[in-house]
């Protein structure tokens, strides 16, 4: 039986986010050799509890760098919790269009942090003809600010 795009996407989401918690050292197995990942930059005094709206991100290229990233940050990665609001997907790739573009939106948090609004985009590359095996070629985690301050235009000096 051939899986539908939706079935592949939903299964992927459970595998990806589930592995973060249960088996973070094996996260990099989900990615292709040349994958590009934009994820949370935990370096430089990382702190999620001082009132900032968005978190810094870092870009990693290649499976080896991705593996190092998830292993270095195992404590933070395995404590990530999510409220997923929506999941949109489209077929993408070459003529066969059997790759999948996924956009997930929601809020992300840790045991002792506030929530952070995010949109995460994935491209999954089909690595078998039967639509049953995929690897991530792109993973972009993007934080969305929600500031509330009032904007006031200063009159020009005459």
């Amino acid at each position, binding site marked *: 039986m051939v*899986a539908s795009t939706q*079935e*592949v996407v*939903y*299964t*992927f*989401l*459970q*595998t990806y*986010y*589930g592995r*973060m*918690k249960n088996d973070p050292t094996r996260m990099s*197995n*989900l990615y292709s050799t040349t994958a590009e990942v934009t994820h949370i930059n935990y370096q430089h005094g990382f702190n999620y509890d001082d*009132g900032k*709206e968005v978190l810094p991100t870092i870009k990693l290229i290649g499976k080896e760098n991705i593996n190092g990233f998830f292993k270095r940050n195992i404590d933070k990665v395995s404590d*990530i*919790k*999510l*409220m*997923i*609001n*929506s*999941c949109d997907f489209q077929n993408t790739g070459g003529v066969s269009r059997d790759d999948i573009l996924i956009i997930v939106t*929601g*809020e992300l*948090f*840790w*045991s002792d*942090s*506030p*929530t*952070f609004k995010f949109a995460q985009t994935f491209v999954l590359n089909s690595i078998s003809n039967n639509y*049953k*095996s*995929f*690897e991530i070629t792109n993973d972009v985690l993007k934080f969305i600010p*929600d*500031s*509330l*301050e*009032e*904007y*006031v*235009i*200063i009159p*020009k000096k005459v």
Partner: protein
Amino acid sequence: SKLTVTKTLEFPLFVNANQKDYIRARSKRREVRLKTINSVKEINLD
């Protein structure tokens, strides 16, 4: 990586957390927001 098939998901979907964990974290975000609600950012159009 091999995948086995998941037919449906319901949103909002809580991952590695339950609704109670989320409500706690969300109320922290709300506190932060409320603190900045009356701040003013001055914009100079010159």
